[in-house]
């Protein structure tokens, strides 16, 4: 019986980031606290990333989380997703 691999929110965020194609570096090489803006995330791409995250996690980010700091690092994104009920899982 195949074991269920539990993916952390951070890992799933990385996969969204990779697919959204908004960074100029290898997403896997970025630490959870690495500055995504220094890695090429710009304001235009941030909106794309927001839409991609909402789609991938089937959530809607509320007004109060739509700030530049929310998308600054993989860790910050995971924390924001946690606030709207996203948990580690498959």
């Amino acid at each position: 019986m195949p074991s269920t691999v539990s993916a952390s929110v951070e890992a799933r965020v990385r996969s969204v980031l990779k697919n959204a194609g908004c960074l100029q570096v290898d997403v896997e090489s970025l630490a959870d606290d690495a500055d995504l803006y220094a890695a090429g995330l710009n304001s235009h791409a941030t909106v794309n990333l927001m839409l991609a995250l909402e789609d991938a996690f089937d959530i809607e980010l509320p007004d109060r989380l739509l700030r530049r700091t929310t998308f600054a690092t993989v860790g910050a994104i995971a924390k924001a997703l946690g606030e709207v009920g996203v948990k580690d899982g498959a």
Partner: protein
Amino acid sequence: MTDKLAASRAAGVEMGARHAADVDARARFPQEAFATLKEQKLLGLLVPARDGGAEASLADVISVCHALGQACASTAMIYAMHQIQVWCIVRHGGDSAWHRAFLKRLASEQLLLASATSEAGVGGDVRSSVCAVEEKDGRFTFDKQATVISYGASADGILATSRRTPQSPASDQVIVVLPKASYELKHLQAWDTLGMRGTCSDGYHLKASGEMGQLIPVPYADVSAQTMLPMSHLTWSAVWLGIASDAVARARAFIRAEARKNANATPIGATRLAEAAQTLQTMKSGLLAALGQYEAALKSDDRLQSPHFAVAMNNLKISSSRLVVEVVGQALLACGLSGYRNDTPFSLSRHLRDAHSAQLMVNNDRILANTARLQLALREEPGLFP
């Protein structure tokens, strides 16, 4: 506004008005007006009192922009651009020793600051840079092909954007304060335009060097969103409101003179004057409401970073820049040929030419494209009294 400040403002307005026609005709820097503005200490209005400035309110600055705009739009726009730079240093450099020392100098010597954000090779997107700060032993250098540095040759300092490091992506920018000793300018392109001719917005090759402490210690993305953009749109709108106000004043004077000639009939242009005055009121209300929003946002970091705030400031710019053209057009219809001529006291030639710059200086389509993106991030509409 204090009586002293109102008197200083009046002195600047008087000098601006006296030389406005010559500044426009010769596309030259309004040096007489700036000598007066410096003498009256109006360049350091926003500098905190602890650093020797007047620590005046944003409303005071907006009011000076509006008054100057009625006299000489080029003078007013240069003054507005200067205050935008000062406000960036006040808000984001206040804790750094180098910037505080510079603000002190600015207040005591009345330094005029220009801006070098435009660059060749980024397609007009000021949130992208080609040039990059190169650091060595605590000092930096960078070279920028600046397509426009308004009044660059007459300024005492420049704020310039650049990529953070040579490895940084185009959007990862810093903004650096450059006193005159920190740069050399090589002239590339002259400014011979329809209007706003006295801003002397020539192109230059900017060669900068200095100490790392001159970098504003906050990412330019934040400086831009929280300070430069709102302040630009507020002060520019005040300048454009000044142009519109003077156009309406000229139309009013013309209609009054017409009415005196024939007291039994309302002059034909009076309806257009009424229309112009109504549009002017809409413009003024928009500016005052946006100023209130910015003042409220300055007390709440969260509100300052909200996409709703960014959209509101964008919308101010879009509407003011359109309405100024509308008001001047209506005033022109009210004045008829007397407004169209260059040799009457009711001439609106300069107003009309200056007004048309508003939708181009940061193209409205670029701002609307940004607002369109932000719409995707907006959730519920804020209430009337958020």
